[in-house]
């Protein structure tokens, strides 16, 4: 039994203990000035958060980001998987390329796309060349377009990962199903909707759960691309938490982080229930 002690200790001290203390500190006015003597304030932090427009905005942005990226990654990933799963020379080159972004740090991807999207960036230069200069703008500095591009970049990064999850799902479908469908004269669209999609259900469960939890936690990409701006247009829960932390409002910051955690557990639970019920046995 002693063999479990080292792992148990590290995990308890550096993971569990902060969670337990967060449960306590979220209900105090804990801040940098009164680091050692926080006062109990009951539900005040939570109530204040839900009355704070910026927090509500962050909550909405987090949900928007998580759901739209999940849908897009699922669709793009599935399309990519269907394209590269076909047998032809060189298909592994495409797989390698599409997977590449997801081993990179978000910071690197963030800086790369800053170069593409800034006022004198690649996209605007391209628009000027094709004579559409008036469409050019500071894509990450304008209201509305900033969030749109963060979503696109996240999909760019992780679509290849989703693709691989689908590839292993596609390869698990027995060939005979398609062969007998073909003999029965089913069109390729019919084969796709009646065989491929239903039998991919377990892959969908993994893809959606994985991407939703990842999306709700998003931090690095937003932080490196916009820092939550312009204004609070792209603020998400984890950047909101960091902002409160930066202002020294530790109690409020813990409460915000706690709400995010509870939210993640709730969403994953409901989604999992729903998706598993739709899986069919082969």
């Amino acid at each position, binding site marked *: 039994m002693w063999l479990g002690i080292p792992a148990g200790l590290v995990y308890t001290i550096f993971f569990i203990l902060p969670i337990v203390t967060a449960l306590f500190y979220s209900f105090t006015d804990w801040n940098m000035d009164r680091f050692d003597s926080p006062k109990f304030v009951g539900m005040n932090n939570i109530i204040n958060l839900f009355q704070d427009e910026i927090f509500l905005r962050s909550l909405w942005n987090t949900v928007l980001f998580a759901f739209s990226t999940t849908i897009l990654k699922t669709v793009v990933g599935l399309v990519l998987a269907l394209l590269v799963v076909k047998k032809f020379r060189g298909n592994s080159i495409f797989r390698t390329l599409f997977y590449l972004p997801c081993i990179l740090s978000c*910071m690197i991807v963030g800086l790369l796309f800053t170069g593409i999207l800034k006022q004198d960036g*690649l996209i605007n230069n391209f628009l000027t060349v094709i004579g559409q200069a008036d469409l050019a703008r500071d894509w990450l500095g304008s209201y509305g377009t900033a969030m749109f591009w963060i979503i696109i970049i996240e999909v760019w990064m992780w679509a290849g990962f989703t693709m691989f*999850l689908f590839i292993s799902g596609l390869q698990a479908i027995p060939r005979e199903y398609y062969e007998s469908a073909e003999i029965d004269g089913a069109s390729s669209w019919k084969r796709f909707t009646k065989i491929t999609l239903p039998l991919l259900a377990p892959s969908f469960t993994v893809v959606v759960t994985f991407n939703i939890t990842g999306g709700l936690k998003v931090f690095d990409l937003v932080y490196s691309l916009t820092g939550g701006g312009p204004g609070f247009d792209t603020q998400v829960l984890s950047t909101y938490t960091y902002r409160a932390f930066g202002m020294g409002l530790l109690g409020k910051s813990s409460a915000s982080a706690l709400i995010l955690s509870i939210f993640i557990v709730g969403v994953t639970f409901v989604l999992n229930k729903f998706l598993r019920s739709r899986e069919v046995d082969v």
Partner: protein
Amino acid sequence: MKLTRKRIGTILTVLILLVISSVYIVPILMMVLGSFKTQGEALHMDLTLPAQLQFENYQHVIETGGILRGYTNSLIITVSAVAIIIIFGSMTGIIISRRGDRKGRGLYYYFVFGLTATMQIVTTYALILKLGLYGTYISVIFVLAAINLPFAVITFSSYVKGIPREIDEAAIMDGCNSFQLIFKVLLPIMKPITITNLIIAAIGIWNNFQVPLYLMSSSERTTIPMMIFNFYGLYSRDWNYVFAALVITVLPVVILYLCLQKHIVEGMTSGAVKG
């Protein structure tokens, strides 16, 4: 040559894939080209070739950017944290699966909790401050290890469950003590799951930005992603340097990826399925 329907389909697929590929190649191309340009050329983002290859950009970045320092830091942190995860994680995984009793099950669910819970970064920061570890390697190493331990413990224990107990019994009959049993018999059998855990933990920790940001933001000991971010803060007008710095950070990772591609892809995908 007669074009069959299948052949046309394949050509069409490749054409579509080539178009999609450009979306992945263009940013990389822009980065590589930009890293060889002069400051004036690089400021105007495009895909033109530089008039003259400016190798000085790389020299400048290596001399002033602290990128090499960031590499050393990232290596120290990643290697130590991964070592903790693999050694402690496998030991715990083994005892959980080999003790089918209540204590073992309790420990198992204690770690399962860690898979669903999210890290509380603010109180982690406070804890590190209290322990006097702010800005040290140790703080980041232990926090990152703790985040990754649940997954390692769970996957190790379910893998060991699949190894027949007869192997243990045979080893003990041959005079193995429990130490030898673990390190000489079980660990070699656990190689596939060890590689999976190694890859998931190493990539996650190498790229992690949030933990160093909270626990050692402006320190000399900070990791590559943080270094790059700080570098951009200083040189945001000199895109030739920014691109050179990006190439230096990306290149080793990409080379490693191309060499270990099969393991990385398999490891990360099976990680998502089990997680």
